[in-house]
């Protein structure tokens, strides 16, 4: 089993863990759209102001689903099962549907 972010203790058995490099391509397991501005703090809206954004879980071949912000211009075409590219950032991982800009 795989966890994210990396953790020195396994949440299943309490024993030690080993690092693993995750794939960067997976499929969208589920998603939603944050339609209203979250409370600030802790939310920090972008400089141009809040706009609805999508979040979801990306399922990777390492048998883990990772929460990510979905970078997509079209909130109406998001579908479960869509192939996405995901990458770690300084903050929450971000994912982009493959084929989208």
């Amino acid at each position, binding site marked *: 089993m795989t966890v994210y*972010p990396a953790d020195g203790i396994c949440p299943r058995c309490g024993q030690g863990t080993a690092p693993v490099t995750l794939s960067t391509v997976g499929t969208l397991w*589920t998603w*939603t*759209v944050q*339609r209203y501005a979250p409370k600030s703090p*802790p*939310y920090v809206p972008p400089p141009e102001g809040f706009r609805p954004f999508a979040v979801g879980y990306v399922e990777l071949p390492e048998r883990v689903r*990772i929460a990510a912000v979905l970078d997509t211009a079209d909130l109406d075409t998001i579908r479960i099962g869509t192939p996405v590219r995901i990458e770690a950032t300084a903050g929450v991982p971000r994912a982009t549907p493959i084929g989208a800009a």
Partner: protein
Amino acid sequence: MGDVLIVGAGISRFGRTEHTTGREHAVYAVRSALADAGIPWSRVGAAFGGSDAAGLADTLVAQLGLTGVPFVNVKNGCATGGSALVSAVNAIRAGMADVVLAVGFDKHPRGAFDPLPADWGLDEAYGRDGLMVTTQFFGMKIQRYMHEHGISARTLALVAEKAYRNGSRNPQAWRRTPVSAAEILASGLVSDPLTRYMFCSPGEGAAAVVLCSPAAARALKGVPVTLRAAVVRSRRFGSFEVFSPWVAAGQPTSVSRDAAAAAFEAAGVAPADVDVCQLQDTESGAEVMHLAECGFCADGEQEKLIAEGATEIGGTLPVNTDGGCIANGEPIGASGLRQIYEVVQQLRGHATGRQVPGEPRVGFTHVYGAPGVSACTVLSR
């Protein structure tokens, strides 16, 4: 193990007020429960209770009476009421006391809950980037469920429509105006696929029950209801919960499934035996999924059951007859005992205006909350 009876149940008005404190709601509910049982506060031999955000339950003795009663504070999120109840049952079975109080109350500020990442062991970025929002989890869980099991948005609207209709028949409810499925669907998306009127709101209120041993009940004049089982569980590995940076692959486990199965086993009752039930309906999707997680139907059957009216008062399995969280709001510490109050009224035949017909004999309650806790009970007449 020995039977435990509920001989008194009390509830305050749910909703949102300017001036009533959570503790005041609690004192009202406790006095109502004592009056229902026909006993003075001094007859209570032990008490368990709590709130999530409205203070310590043991301070209620300043208003109820300084009798020296052992009063234990319980703080267990959405399972606060259920945990107080389990403690009360164990106190009676262990012989600590023969009459025991359980109380839950709360009062939350307007708007969504606003938890901090550090409190959940998460990086600050989850708050900064806008992921510390509970409604996202509910949206994502039902989104996946609809995809796998063919549940429609209209079914989600029908669940909320029923909640407001039942709330309109309940004098203690907050939302007492019926709202149509069309209005619910058009009320604006909050977290896709859930709209504004599909969600409950944090609110305020209190509920209390008086429990006792069969011997103690014989001296009382109230109408007792048997608490056949009261169970609290926390999540196992593989569940899908709010504020999770990751979820294990495979079919998620469910703490509600575990708690419900344990409650039915302890009670010696099957889901098919239940005549009235209260299920956690933080939003419409939760009620749909909890119907299956608690064992009342197979995944996907809800689409047909709800369309046919099975979950209505008068249906084959009435669900959330008091309007649930959607119509009563969610005072976290109070909701579990609100459900018990409602089932007690239904089993006694006292749910005026919303009574399930046919003299229901078996009731079930279920709460679920963060970070993966569930409490279930089985009650019978």
